[in-house]
């Protein structure tokens, strides 16, 4: 089939560049400049899909983003699949592969029609509402069936080969829409010197000017468009964004734009180019020039392919050189629609008749049509279309609009195209994203944007200004106002000359009456995408749904990707009539972002793959990589988890590493611990207030462990803080808590105690920290340092300064393993060299690098807590059996003290941290396992606690665990049971949480 509907001349297409494409497996040809919809129509493709609920054949209705039916799946390969593409917005490219998303197995057979009839019964209006009121499992049954039938498209199963990114934009004036009003606004705003962004969703700027029969300054309007674009392009502060849909209007004039950079070039972006870009725009002022969508009239069988919008047909004829039929019937209530008649005649095609709901239309275009011999039936409308897969005739009757009645039997006219126009609906979507309620204007029968708090102006058709001359003037006015609002001087601009037409008012007509009552007449569709009929809306109101939002949810009117572009106003009008109220009283539903669908690729931008999130590394990372470390995520950090040798798994490696530390010496990269430098005469007082224990007597040269609590008395961080000098401390925090603790210190300093003279500075990244731990650590360290390591000269919980590996270092003698340990801190730039020197010197001492898993086991053997693992925000120091760390006599009521003295924090049966020793030493309790006293009791069992940490201990040769158990400290020696999901039960004895070296001899040697 060649392009049967392509006109011999005309259109903005390049006939010298044919493009091959396929639709539902059939090959077709179109031209450069076509949209997919234009090319399908040119090839005489009537049916593009099956409807959502009734499975009725559907064809293309519109030419822009309001298209409800031609929502297709694009892509020839799995990776290139894109669902929900509107054929009217997709530029044709060579090799494009498209298919219907709905209409299995074939859009041209009636197989689904049977199901469709069933579907009509199974899915009455209110389906969603009613289904959700039934038990959930019923929904599961329906869902399969609906998903299969519904036009939801499908996501690709293979990775997207394309790249997407973000661009953060700032401008004085963002103009949304590049039609007549938008271009005029951009021109004056640009001339004022303001930073301007002009975004338009179409392939070319110009909007209706690209297809209108009206002239500007006596020349085709497209010539003015070209001239304006050239001037805008020459302005350095003006950014033109074609193929860019402003899809969300967010708080404080933040708008998001989805720009399709290469979607028109092929299904995969050319080498080195991005597919799409998300512009995140902060605008001082916004001009909405989003235009209007023509409203169809609602009549019987108005969904049969061959029923289209009047404007859309003009666009196909004039912009794409496509005539989607031969014999046209127009049904209208306004003057503007007559332009399609004139365009159709100009193309040499037959106009069968015009049905005008008005009794005596006399506007300029009406008269011109009359003069050219068009038959005009006044006071009439198309009440019903005939045909199943394509329109074959239209029945036109005289109607009484006031009483919603058909007043003549009418006549049936053969035709293959019925175009309708019920007036214009301003595209108020963006204006209402932030809650600005659109207001109904009876004079133009349309909702226009309501007031908004954001600094914005509306111009042109969105403002209810439909005439071309007025729209241009309105655009200039909005552009000037916006520039002035943004702080620029007003610049005047002349508006091109438009031939003035006599335009008469539109007749209020939404649903065309039928001989039969709505419920019994053939289906009259209001929302084609969601298969909502006039009868469905009447049913909703009969069932008591009177609020517009309820009607919407009951019927699905304007749901999903459609967002009520075509059907909303007609639906409201029908509901209002059923309820006997005015449209203004009915009001409209609100619109949500996104205006049209946005791909996940554009949402993700570059934040995927390697760049999905920030990864933080220590100065020793290259060594860890070279030495085969497996890594664990701790916050954003990548920490060595364990260092497996050939053939070793996690457990083998950890057992080996643990024993190495217990019996020889190990080295751990502890650089990720948060480190905060604290200076000032009140530093010590500040520590007293934020730590649970006392700091008054900590001498210079010493270090102390501390717990931090929130005001409620619950532990939220811990660490060792050293006194570097009288007014100088170095605090360490947990790896994950570093930023949180810093903000914590600052909030108290800035908001509660600004009088305290103290400053906090993060030095986490400045210092690299390596921990040497194990009985051989002293011997090893002695080989690389000039510090006197004698146990009396450098005792436990003190620090020294000196050289380590030829680099100035601070060495802290503190221990998280219970072994003799030294934490060596050097400026991170020199850490790798120091680390390598220690590794070299350590060879003869059995030095073994170990990771976080071994660290966890070793500390658990000692009963040392990990905040966030053994605590969960509901655990006090006393619950942890760490009452020794609570300064009960400190003079200042430090953070947490009052909270932990609440009645609930002192009751006896609180969960307390204890050790658990499984009776079977080979069984390792799962972390998180719930504990009970009697595993044979009926479910639900009385749970008495849960496991927080659990490991196989190589040093102890049995498994160990830590657990929070109700009243646990009084129950040492008792048994608890962990019933597991697989039905087995692990029995354990409650013991002290210090399993290894309870007296602490090993760390004090």
């Amino acid at each position, binding site marked *: 089939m060649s392009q049967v509907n392509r006109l011999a001349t005309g259109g903005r297409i390049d006939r010298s560049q044919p493009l091959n494409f396929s639709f539902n497996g059939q090959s077709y040809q179109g031209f450069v400049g076509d949209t997919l919809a234009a090319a399908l129509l040119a090839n005489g493709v009537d049916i593009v899909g099956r409807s959502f609920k009734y499975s009725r054949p559907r064809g293309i209705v519109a030419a822009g983003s309001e298209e409800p039916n031609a929502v297709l799946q694009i892509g020839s390969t799995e990776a290139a699949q894109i669902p929900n593409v509107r054929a009217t917005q997709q530029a044709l490219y060579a090799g494009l592969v498209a298919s219907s998303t709905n209409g299995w197995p074939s859009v041209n057979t009636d197989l689904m029609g049977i199901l469709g009839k069933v579907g009509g019964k199974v899915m009455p209006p209110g389906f969603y509402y009613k289904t959700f009121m039934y038990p959930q499992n019923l929904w599961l049954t329906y869902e399969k069936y609906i998903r299969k039938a519904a036009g939801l498209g499908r996501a690709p199963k293979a990775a997207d080969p394309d790249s997407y990114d973000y661009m953060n934009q700032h401008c004085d004036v963002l103009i949304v829409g590049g039609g007549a009003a938008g271009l005029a606004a951009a021109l004056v705003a640009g001339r004022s010197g303001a930073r301007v962004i002009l975004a338009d969703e179409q392939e070319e700027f110009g909007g209706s000017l690209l297809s209108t029969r009206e002239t500007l300054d006596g020349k085709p309007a497209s010539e003015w468009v070209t001239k304006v674009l050239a001037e805008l392009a020459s302005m350095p502060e003006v950014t033109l964004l074609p193929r860019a849909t402003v899809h969300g209007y967010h708080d404080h004039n933040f708008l998001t734009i989805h720009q399709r950079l290469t979607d028109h070039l092929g299904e995969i972006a050319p080498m*080195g180019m991005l597919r799409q870009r998300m512009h995140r725009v902060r605008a001082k002022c916004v001009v909405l020039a989003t235009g209007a969508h023509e409203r169809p009239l609602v009549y019987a069988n108005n969904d049969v392919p061959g029923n289209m919008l009047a404007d859309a047909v003009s666009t196909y004829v004039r912009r794409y050189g496509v005539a989607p039929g031969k014999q046209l019937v127009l049904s209208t209530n306004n003057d503007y629609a007559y332009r399609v008649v004139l365009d159709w005649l100009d193309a040499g095609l037959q106009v069968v008749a015009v049905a005008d709901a008005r009794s005596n239309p006399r506007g300029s275009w009406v008269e011109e049509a009359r003069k050219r011999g068009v038959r005009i039936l006044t006071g009439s409308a198309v009440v019903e279309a005939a045909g199943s897969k394509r329109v074959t005739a239209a029945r036109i009757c005289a109607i009484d609009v006031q009483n919603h009645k058909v007043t003549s039997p009418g006549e049936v006219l053969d035709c293959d195209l019925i175009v309708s126009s019920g007036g214009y609906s301003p595209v108020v979507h963006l204006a209402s994203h932030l809650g600005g309620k659109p207001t109904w204007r009876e004079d133009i029968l349309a909702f226009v944007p309501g007031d908004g708090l954001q600094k914005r102006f509306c111009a042109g058709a969105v403002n209810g200004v439909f005439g071309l001359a007025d729209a241009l003037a309105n655009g200039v006015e909005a552009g000037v106002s916006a520039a002035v609002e943004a702080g620029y001087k007003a610049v005047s601009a002349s508006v091109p000359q438009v031939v003035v037409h006599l335009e008469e008012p539109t007749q209020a007509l939404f649903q065309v009456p039928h001989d039969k009552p709505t419920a019994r007449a053939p289906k009259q569709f209001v929302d084609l995408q969601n298969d909502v009929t006039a009868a469905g809306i009447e049913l909703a109101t009969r069932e008591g749904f009177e609020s517009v939002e309820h009607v919407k949810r009951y019927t699905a009117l304007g749901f999903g990707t459609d967002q009520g572009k075509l059907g909303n106003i007609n639906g409201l009008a029908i509901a209002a009539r059923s309820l006997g109220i005015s449209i203004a009283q009915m009001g409209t539903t609100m619109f949500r972002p996104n205006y049209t669908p946005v791909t996940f690729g554009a949402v993700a931008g570059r934040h995927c793959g*390697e760049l999905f999130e920030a990864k933080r590394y220590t100065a020793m990372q290259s060594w860890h990589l070279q030495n085969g470390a497996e890594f664990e995520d701790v916050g954003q950090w990548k920490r060595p988890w364990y260092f497996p040798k050939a053939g070793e798994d996690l457990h083998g490696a950890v057992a080996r590493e643990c024993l190495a530390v217990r019996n020889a010496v190990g080295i751990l990269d502890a650089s990720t611990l948060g480190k905060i430098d604290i200076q*000032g005469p009140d530093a010590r007082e500040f520590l007293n207030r934020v730590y649970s224990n006392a700091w008054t007597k900590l001498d210079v040269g010493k270090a102390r462990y501390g717990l931090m609590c929130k005001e409620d008395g619950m532990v939220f961080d811990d660490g060792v803080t050293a006194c570097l000098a009288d007014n100088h401390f170095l605090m360490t925090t947990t790896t994950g808590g570093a930023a949180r603790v810093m903000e914590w210190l600052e909030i108290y300093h800035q908001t509660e105690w600004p009088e305290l003279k103290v*400053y906090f*500075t993060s030095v986490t*990244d400045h*210092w690299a920290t390596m921990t040497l731990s194990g009985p051989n650590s002293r011997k090893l360290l002695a080989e690389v340092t000039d510090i006197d390591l004698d146990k009396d000269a450098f005792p436990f919980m003190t620090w020294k300064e000196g050289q380590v590996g030829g680099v100035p270092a601070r060495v802290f003698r503190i221990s998280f393993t219970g072994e003799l340990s030294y934490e060596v801190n050097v*400026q991170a730039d020199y850490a790798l*060299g120091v680390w390598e020197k220690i590794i070299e010197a350590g060879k003869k001492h059995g030095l073994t690098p170990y990771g976080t898993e071994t660290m966890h086991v070793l500390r658990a053997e000692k009963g040392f807590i990990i905040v966030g693992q053994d605590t969960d925000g509901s655990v006090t120091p006393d619950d942890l059996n760490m009452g020794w760390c609570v300064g009960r006599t400190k003079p200042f009521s430090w953070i947490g003290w009052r909270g932990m003295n609440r009645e609930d924090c002192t009751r006896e049966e609180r969960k307390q941290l204890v050790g658990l020793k499984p009776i079977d030493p080979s069984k390792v309790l799962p972390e998180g396992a719930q504990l009970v006293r009697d595993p044979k009791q009926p479910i639900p069992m009385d749970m008495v606690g849960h496991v927080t940490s659990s490991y196989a201990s190589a040093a102890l040769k049995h498994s160990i665990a830590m657990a929070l158990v109700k009243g646990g400290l009084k129950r040492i020696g008792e048994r608890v049971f962990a019933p597991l999901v697989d039905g087995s039960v692990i029995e354990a004895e409650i013991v002290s949480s210090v399993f290894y070296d309870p007296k602490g001899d090993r760390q004090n040697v």
Partner: protein
Amino acid sequence: MSNSINVYQQRPAAAHAESPLFHAELDQLVGKGPAKAGVTLREKKLLGHLTLRGDAKDSAFAGAVHQALGLELPSALMLVAAGETSLQWLGPDEWLLVVPSGTEFAVEQKLRAALDGQHISIVNVSGGQTLLELSGPKVRDVLMKSSSYDVHPSNFPVGKAVGTVFAKSQLVIRHTGEDTWELVVRRSFADYVWLWLQDASAEFGLAIKA
């Protein structure tokens, strides 16, 4: 100077140093980018970085800083520089002082002497951060991809410096010349920022300068 603060020379006289981006082996990449690069990157590595805290409203503080450094204490979002030394506002009581590599200990002592008796803080953070200099006609585009801060010269003139969000990390952007910008990057985030910059500048061409 009082001994209430522990200050010592943290940089060794002679030892091999690895800057936060040493593993990227930028030296090996010099001259290997496109001939006409839109973006040129240089790590200004191993400089002395000191965080200075004090009371900006106290003229004695500003005076002593000026006396020690020869630089006026910059006000909000400003960066002042003389030769290889720059002083940047980070917050109402916080500044970043960047000095030639190895001079940070002497500078700190000089500052402490000048500020003796005042409640101040000086912290050596040289090992914790690095400067990435970006130059070329497309740097602004790369910054626009990365940060929601407005980098248009009308909002971000030369001599301004702001702390902001950059991709999924945070850093300081400094505008040091018409087409020249610096990023103050924390060591642990340096690799992420480097990966991000390679990706963001790929379409403009990225070159590396020693």
